[in-house]
């Protein structure tokens, strides 16, 4: 049984069918890169896995539990699968430490000192232990994104979804975030990431998914997908045509 099983998933916004039957099984510890043109449905797929969008048909199962659209099931799912956003989405009214603690104390009812211990540990892990008392708007974009990663990690998810997490960053800040992700991958975290960082995908990912017009158009290990694309669409996307 795979960790994440996506079967024949369809999603439409009104008449616009964005996902047209997606199949994808992710094994524990895999790092999946999703690539594809703008509008091909990459973000929508990630958002469906996290329950931020409800699917119209098909099924998604995480660690054997079906994704159902009621709040109880959704919350159970989200404890297993964390999500990192392009725009960081830190809580501006809370300190860095508060950002990492709030979901632990509110959702898991963790005692405050325990939550703080966990927050410090996770912030150290992303190299920001010294920013515990700072506010998000006092940090650089790269630092904010690393806090967002620490915040998701503090919930001890079994998988992380990352939607273009370096796209909103200045070029010189991209590497510090990718370094954190690389470390997570090395530690065996299951990752599904939408990315435009092809070099990173080639180095770190176990499989690459090329999405085109709402379908998984091509899938395989990075060396195959990047060096030996099978379809004209992927060749064009990679700039080989």
């Amino acid at each position, binding site marked *: 049984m795979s960790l994440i099983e996506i079967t024949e998933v369809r999603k439409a916004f009104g008449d616009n069918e964005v996902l047209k039957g997606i199949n994808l099984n992710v094994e524990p510890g895999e790092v999946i890169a999703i690539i594809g043109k703008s509008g091909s449905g990459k973000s929508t797929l990630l958002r469906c896995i*996290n329950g931020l969008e409800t699917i119209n048909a098909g099924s998604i199962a995480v660690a054997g539990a079906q994704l159902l659209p009621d709040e109880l099931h959704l919350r159970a799912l*989200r404890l297993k699968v*964390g999500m990192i956003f392009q*725009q960081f989405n830190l809580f501006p*009214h809370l300190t860095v430490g508060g950002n990492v603690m*709030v979901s632990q104390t509110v*959702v898991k009812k963790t005692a405050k000192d325990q939550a703080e211990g966990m927050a410090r540990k996770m912030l150290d892990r992303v190299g920001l232990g010294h920013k515990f008392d700072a506010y998000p708007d006092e940090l650089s974009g790269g630092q904010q994104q690393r806090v967002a990663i620490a915040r998701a990690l503090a919930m001890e998810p079994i998988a992380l979804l990352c939607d273009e997490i370096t796209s909103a960053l200045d070029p010189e800040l991209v590497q510090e975030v990718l370094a954190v992700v690389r470390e997570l991958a090395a530690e065996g975290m299951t990752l599904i990431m939408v990315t435009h960082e092809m070099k990173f995908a080639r180095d770190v990912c176990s499989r690459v998914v090329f999405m085109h017009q709402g379908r998984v158009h091509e899938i395989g290990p990075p060396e195959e997908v990047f060096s030996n694309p099978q379809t004209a669409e992927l060749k064009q996307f990679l700039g080989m045509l």
Partner: protein
Amino acid sequence: MSDFSTWDIIRNLLLAARWTVVLSLVSFIGGGVLGVILLFLRIGKFAGACAFARYYVELFQGTPLLMQLFLAFFGLGLFGIDVPAWLAAGLALIFWSAAFLMEIWRGCVDAIAKGQWEASASLGMGYFQQIRYIILPQAIRIAVPPTVGFSVQVVKGTALTSIIGFVELSKAGTIVTNATFQPFTVYGFVALIYFALCWPLSKSAQVLERKLNVAHRNH
């Protein structure tokens, strides 16, 4: 021609101004409580409740406060319910304030970026936890200045209740004018007293706005 001294005029007006203050406080606080209830109906997940809150606001924002006062005062009288002026004034102003406060606050909740809802949801928070720990703390911060600013409208709104016979500052002004035949002096003082009530409020709304803006940048 009358034995009203200036001091008598001021004393009578100040006595009546107490009722302006009381009515303002009752309207603002009552409207605030009702406004919070309406706000939760409006941003909640029940379509029927949400529609009710929306129509409520449209009704009370779409008709003049004066008509609402008339309806509360004379309308209920038609049904044989004898409504004293203070009650009609209080009720109408509470309902009216609630509609405006709810709209102000809804705007503040809406101003919170969608990403805040999504990030808190993705961390496993339920709807009420999102509201309590993520959305409201941010919304309240931006809601304070316009809310204080609206209190000025409430104070001025109380002047209308003079028309249904509630004796507050404006009505007292009319009564005193009728006794003294010095409309310019009397209404001059009336205006001064209103100004003394409203100016600190609008000033503090401004100061709060500046303070909270700075606070938002530097904490």
